[in-house]
Structures are given as C-alpha cells and as structure tokens.
C-alpha cells in the first residue's frame, strides 16, 4: 500500500474538521487558542481574514463547522465555535488601525457590485486595498442585504452590523443606497465598469398557491414581512399567527411575531422533526419563546370571510415509505386552525427581471444564471455572480466564500490573466515542541461539557423587539469552552524512518487511533479489519506510513477520534512522531498564499 500523500495541504486540512467544513476555511483552532490567551483582537483579525464578518457570523452563522467538529464524535456535543467567535468580536476593543486603511493608490479599474450584501461587501473588502474603485448598488436604504432585512435585530444587533460593514465602507467603497439596478444592459454599456459582480441575493419569497391566498391582506410573504419589520414599517401582528414552513426564516418569523403581539404562534410543518430545515438551535430558541410547532400538516386553503382572514385548513398527513423507498403521504383528515395573520416561509429564490436575456448572460431552464463553480464568471466575460444570486439560497458564510473567490477572478480578469490560473493554497507545518513534554498548545484533554448560552428572560425579550436574546459567554464559560477544543490543527506527523516499532505510541493512545500492520497490498478492507478499534467513519482519512525500517510493516492512524493529546509523541523514544501545527495559507485577490 502506498503511503498517504501528505505533501499537499488538503490532507492536513481535512483533519481539521471545522476548518474543512467552513466554506471560508476559517482557522478555527488557532483563533480559539488566541481567545484562550485573551488575545481577542488577534482572534478577531484572524477570523476576519477569512470570514470578514466575525461579529455577525458569531451570532448568525449556520455553523457548518459545529456538526463537523471532532469533539462531537468523542463525546456528544461539539465545541461552541460560533459563540466563541462572538466572544472575540465582543471583546476585541479597537482594531481599526490594524485594518487596511486608505487612501489606496488607485489602479484605474472600476468594479460594480449589484447589491450590498455579504458577497458584494467581501468583494469590496478584497479589492479596495488593491486600488480598485468599487461601487455598491443597493436597492434598500441601508447596506447589509439579508443580514439587515431578514435577520431580526434580537439575533443580530444593528450596531454589530453597522460596525463590520463600516470597516469595509471606510476603505473607500462607493455605496449607492436606494439605487436598484433595473437594467444590466445599461450598467454594462453606460457604467464604464471593468467588471460587474452580481451579489443580489435570493430576494423573492416563495408564494403558496392555495385558494384564498389573495383574498386577505393578512397573508404575508416571510422575507418581505421581516424586511418591513426591520425597516419599521410593520410594528404589530394579530394575536393568532400561523407560520407556514419550518426553515430558519420561519423561525425568525415566528419569534418576531411573538414580539409584535402574537400570543398564539404556531409553526406549521408538512413533515416530522427529522426533516426540518431549521437549525436545531433555532428551533430550540423558538420553542423556548412559546412557539408551538405542529408537525405533519400540509396547507390546503385560506379561510377568508367578508374579507377577513379566519384561519387556514390543513390536511393532516401520515407518512410512510413505499416499495421504492420513497416517502409517501396520506391525508388522514382536514383540520381548521384559526389565525389573524399567516406568514409564508416556504423558501426563497433568485430574481433577475433586470438582466436582459440578449446580452450574453446565459440562464438555464430553471432561470438560474450559468455560472462557473470555480471562477464565478457567467457566460459573459467580466460578469461574475456570487452569494445566493449564483446558485440559489445558501447562507452568509457561503456568500463570503464566494466573494473571496470572485474577487480573485475579478483581479485576474482586470489584469488580463486567465481566470483558471488561480493561486494555489499553501501550508505551513511547524513543530509545537517547547520542552521535554511541553507544547505550545494545551494538550491535556478537558472533560468539560459544552457551555450553555444564557438568554435574556422572556419578559424582557418580548418588551423590546431589538433586545439581543443571547447574552454571550462570560469569562468562565469562555475559558471552559476554549479548553474543549481538541486543537485538531496540531497534527501527529510521522517519520517512518525513525520508528523502532516499540509500540509505545500504540499502547498509550487513549482512543486507539494507531496500529502497526503488515502491508496489506491494495486490500483496504484487510487493513481496516486489523485496526486497533473499528473504523467508525470511513469518510475520515487513514494516515498510512511508508514501510518501517525493521519489519517493513506500516504505521496506520485512523484520524477519526484522535484528540491530539500528543501522548504518542511524548512516548516516542525516537521522535518519529511530532506534533506540528498546520497553517492553511489561503490565497486572496492580489495576495498569493505562497510564492509560485
């Protein structure tokens, strides 16, 4: 069996589950260590490098990192990565003097961004310091896109939003508020821009085509309703509210309704809990606020009498699996739920009525633009898409990742270089050895359980629509949560030539990661059968060494539940093992990761 190729960053990167799962590849373990050292500003800036909005994301991120977190495989709960990020943002102090500050020497290139949401702001963040002139066209009266219009202030305070958007605008972005782009042709022909980035999001809420839909003004489309609340146009709602759909927007709708006067708020779900789209923690927060979640009810019709909404009829469903393994529903009966307002939160989609179809920007059958997955360029050279606008609704952290990638493309485009000649990722692996058994990270395992976020009590919450619900971790909680991180970026790096096969590492490993086996050839199954502990997650990599000097056997490590305690290294008499810190070097526009 050939030794695992560890010469490229991908192998090590994958072992850092959180960083690998993060679309922007934020260096999570490193910033958690910095928080642990009280270096909040450094932690914040490290975050900002990749995710641009640590304060915002520390409250609202979809947290792809947390389900991936190795801690969740070792005990039950992952590290509260997201909330630690918020700690760094809250306590960082003044960092403005550590951000790129203009005026920058202009390079004469002009970029237009359609929409001022996270994707466009990221593009501006990356290109402004390089001397680009970036103009952001926003149809609303404030920047931020969905972060402002759709995420309620009790989850994301306006001050945080203004601060982090301000860092980018202060680099010299030209922000045009209340300026919707109504014609792409005009923008391209008359704007005089060298490139256009479309970051206009997925602004259209899906409608429910059911009888009675348009007979009452009390039926609302969720994201429009949230926007109207955010900008102060809607300030009240009826006592009985039905929210249709069970995604994260539905959670924001029902919780907002509770604050605007809704007493009996129900979320109506077609299916049962395992199929809900909302993040578990958002469901939990909604239920804590007294929202009832009704499962297996499909909307049938709106009941409107004399122009007044009375409620809705629902089909009560029973689900089963058919012979082909598909989920099938059967209607048991039809039931009536009274309501004063109904809010539809059943999804959202992109809308491009302002892009003419004859200007070289191709759209597919479903009305989505044809966009290259890597370069983000559309079929028209110099026009790029990112965020929800590119491939439909994702989330903020994906929008940021798209913004970075698109900025690289725009920079290459403006310099006349091929878009596919993208700067590669680099890596650094440095030993953490500080003394005989001392490491530059805390290698001992801390058995603390995940810290629970403290919430403002319900009464105060409902009295103030804009009062942030989550209090944030205090110092003691932060210290405990930081210690839960397993430092997966500090890797067990093996040097086969030094190994004397004394078994010390295998014997000491508390989680049975290591095995020395006779070379099984190409037979992976034979290899797996001989591992010290069963391979629970085949998607987790195996680290296979070259032949060991004395017996030509192979050292195999199952990375799955390694807690990075470093004991293998401490018990190794020949330093065949070393604990080395991995840094993923990511390229950004105008800043290659490593010399090429």
């Amino acid at each position, binding site marked *: 069996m050939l030794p695992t190729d560890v010469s490229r960053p991908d192998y090590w990167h994958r072992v850092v589950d959180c960083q690998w799962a993060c679309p922007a590849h934020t260096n999570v373990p490193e910033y958690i260590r910095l928080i642990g050292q009280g270096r909040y500003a450094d932690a914040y800036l490290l975050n900002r490098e990749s995710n641009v909005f640590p304060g915002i994301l520390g409250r609202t991120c979809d947290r792809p990192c947390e389900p991936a977190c190795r801690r969740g*495989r*070792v*005990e039950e709960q992952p590290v509260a990565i997201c909330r630690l990020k918020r700690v760094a943002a809250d306590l960082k102090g003044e960092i403005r003097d550590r951000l790129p500050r203009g005026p920058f020497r202009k390079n004469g290139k002009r970029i237009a961004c359609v929409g001022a949401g996270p994707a466009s702001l990221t593009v501006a963040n990356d290109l402004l310091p390089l001397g680009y002139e970036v103009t952001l066209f926003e149809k609303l009266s404030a920047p931020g896109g969905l972060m402002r219009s759709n995420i309620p202030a009790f989850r994301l305070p306006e001050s945080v939003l203004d601060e982090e958007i301000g860092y980018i605008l202060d680099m010299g972005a030209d922000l045009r508020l209340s300026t919707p782009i109504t014609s792409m042709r005009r923008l391209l022909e008359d704007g005089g821009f060298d490139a256009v980035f479309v970051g206009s999001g997925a602004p259209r809420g899906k409608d429910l085509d059911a009888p009675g839909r348009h007979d009452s003004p009390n039926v609302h489309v969720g994201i429009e309703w949230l926007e109207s609340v955010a900008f102060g146009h809607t300030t009240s709602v009826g006592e009985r509210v039905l929210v249709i759909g069970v995604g994260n927007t539905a959670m924001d709708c029902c919780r907002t309704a509770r604050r605007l006067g809704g007493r009996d708020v129900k979320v109506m779900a077609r299916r049962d809990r395992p199929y809900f789209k909302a993040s578990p923690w958002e469901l939990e927060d909604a239920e804590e606020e007294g929202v009832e979640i009704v499962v297996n009810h499909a909307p049938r019709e709106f009941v409107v009498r004399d122009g007044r909404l009375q409620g809705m009829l629902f089909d009560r469903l029973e689900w089963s699996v058919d012979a082909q393994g598909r989920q099938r529903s059967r209607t048991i009966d039809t039931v009536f739920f009274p309501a004063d307002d109904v809010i539809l939160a059943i999804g959202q989609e992109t809308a491009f009525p302002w892009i003419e179809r004859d200007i070289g920007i191709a759209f597919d059958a479903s009305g989505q633009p044809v966009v290259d997955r890597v370069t983000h360029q559309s079929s028209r050279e110099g026009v790029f898409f990112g965020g929800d606008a590119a491939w439909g609704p994702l989330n903020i952290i994906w929008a940021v990742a798209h913004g970075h990638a698109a900025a690289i493309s725009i920079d290459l485009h403006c310099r006349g270089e091929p878009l596919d000649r993208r700067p590669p990722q680099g890596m650094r692996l440095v030993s953490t050895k500080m003394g005989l*058994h*001392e490491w530059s990270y805390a*290698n*001992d*395992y801390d*058995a603390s359980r995940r810290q629970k976020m403290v919430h403002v009590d319900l009464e105060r919450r409902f009295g103030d629509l804009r009062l942030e619900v989550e209090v944030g971790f205090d110092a003691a909680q932060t210290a405990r949560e930081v210690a839960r991180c397993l430092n997966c970026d500090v890797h067990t790096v093996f040097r086969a030539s030094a190994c*004397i*096969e*004394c*078994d*010390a590492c*295998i*014997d*000491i490993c*508390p*989680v*049975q*990661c290591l095995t020395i086996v006779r070379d099984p050839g190409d037979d992976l199954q034979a290899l797996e059968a001989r591992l010290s*502990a*069963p391979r*629970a997650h085949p998607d987790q990599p195996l680290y296979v060494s070259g032949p060991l000097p*004395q*017996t030509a056997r192979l050292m195999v490590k199952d990375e799955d*539940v390694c*807690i990075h*305690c470093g*004991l293998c290294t*401490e*018990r*190794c*008499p*020949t330093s065949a093992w070393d604990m080395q810190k991995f840094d993923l070097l990511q390229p950004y526009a105008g800043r290659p990761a490593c010399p090429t």
Partner: protein
Amino acid sequence: MTYIKKPAVRHPGLEKNALGLTLRDYEGSMSTLCAGCGHDSITAAIIRACHALSIAPHTVAKLSGIGCSSKTPTYFLGGAHGFNSAHGRMPAIATGAGAANRRLLLLGVSGDGDSLSIGLGQMAHAIRRNLRMTYILENNGVYGLTKGQFSASTDLGSKSRRGDPNVVPPIDPVLLALSIGATFVARSFSGDKDQLVPILEAALCHDGLAFVDVISPCVTFNDHEGSTKSYAYVRKHGLPVVHADFVPPADPITLEQEPGTTQIVPLHGGARVRLTKVAQDYDPRDRVRAFAFVQEHLARGEIVTGLLFLDESRPSMHEVMGTVETPLVELPYESLCPGAAALDAITEQWR
C-alpha cells in the same frame, strides 16, 4: 515520563468483554518508565490478555520485586491487589499469597536482575514447586535502574552503551526453567504482541507456574548497535518455532490443520491452546528435545520464541501440598485456629 494523565476519554467503538469492561478499564496509572521501554509494551499486552479473558481485576494479585520491570504492576489493572516486595523476593510473597488464597490469580512481574541475580534461588524454587501463577520475566539484559550495568542475562560479547563487551556467560532463563521441571515455558518479545498476547492468555489459564521470558529492550541503556537485546537485533535474530493460539472455553475449534503440525492442549477452566509448529523439527511437548533445540539455536545466536514447552499433567503446588480450597480469609475462625487441644493432638501424633 509525561506530565499529563492519560485522558479518560475513550474510543466510542471500543469492544466490551463479558464483564462489560473495555480495554481502558484494565489500565493502571501512567507509566513513569522511559518512552519506548519494552516493559510498557508488555504492560499493554497484559492489559489485552486480561481484557480478552474477562478477568475481574479484583481477583488478581500483582506481585513484583525491585527494578524497572517491578514498577510496572502499577501501570495495569488498577483494581487488582498488589505487592511490591523486597528485591528478588517476589516468588516467596507469591507462594504465601497463593497458599493463603487459592482463588487469587497470581501475576508476578520480575526482571533479569530481580530473577536471575538476587532472586535466582527464589525463582528456581517457585518453578520447582509449580506454584500456580503467571511469572513474567521482563528481560532487557541490563540494569537500567542503576544506569546500564550488564545483568545476568547479558549475552557474551554483547556491548554496553560505551562499547565494552560482556565477558561473563549469561543465564538463559528458558533453559534454566526447562531444566528444573517447569510446566509452561515461553519466550516472546515485547515488540510482537501478536505472539505475546495469546501466550499470556494461555499462561493465565495454566494450572501451574507459567514461565514467560519476554525480551524487552531498554531504550535508554541497551538499544544500541552491538547489543543483543535491542529492538533491531531481536527482530533480526528472533526465531518463532511454535505459534500459540488461545481458544476460549466457549469457542469451538474450527480450523483443522495438517496433522502433525497442530496440537490442541486443554488448559485449566475449559480453555485450550492450539500450538502450531513453525519449525518442523520442534515439539513443544518434549522437554528433552525442546531443551536441546533451544540450546543449539542459542549457540548460533538465534533467539527461539513461542510457547516452547507445555505439560499440563504435572500437579501444581496446591495438589502436592494438599492446600485448602477455601481462601483462609473465608474459613471460620475455629477451623483456622482449632485451639491448643488440636495442636496438642497433632504434636502427640508425632511423638
């Protein structure tokens, strides 16, 4: 020696034995031996064997003398009884413990200094008596705890770390054990758990003294070029002649091997050991030929390994002495101490 304790966290898929215990439940405290010490590997093999046999830790008495090897009982079976005796006196303590409580599973750990120098007489008599115990000799051919002097098992010509050759002939513990009537004699290597673990499993089920000489390199003082007890040397010169598979009582024996190469030997308590010959001219049931074989190969510089000799027919010390089945601690006081009248009667008998 590491500064942190081995974290209590364990692999979620770790196998549980009949007692519901995992491997981790058979550990002791953190080793303070040098990193890479063969003794730690033997410790791990003992943990594996006890886990596989579903031995309840509190039924075991761990016994040792003085030396690096004798420190190791602290590092396994934290729930077992233990006695760290005076230098070389482990066999005496073991004999006493065994006589007092036949139900205790005696697990003695000693080294080449403890057993072949100061305690040679002790060891020899325990073997002679066929005390029911597992006797592990962690053999590194050096006095590690006193900084690397030659021991009684250092081979002729084997070099110290400074380069001086040993000029005094060694005692070979396997030949010694065979010559004084041992009923279970094995030699293995700390770096080969595939061989060592089944040998230990069989040893723990042997009705008599199971003597296991384990070559266990001292990484600090005896793992250099010129040493005959280094990892590299043992790997190069080791000659496995018998492979032992331990077969637990419940398991049927399925694999039929060629007659003449495999022997099934029943052990105490229903378990069996299947001995497969690796070397054709070797017979682990023939003491005389085994002795000659080991000696011939020793002369050629080869280290013969495996379960080298097994004889379940000889009675153990308990049978010979007619010791009482019930542990003394459980006997009623009147039986244990029948009083002056009973003593007088016994004395009278021999007048």
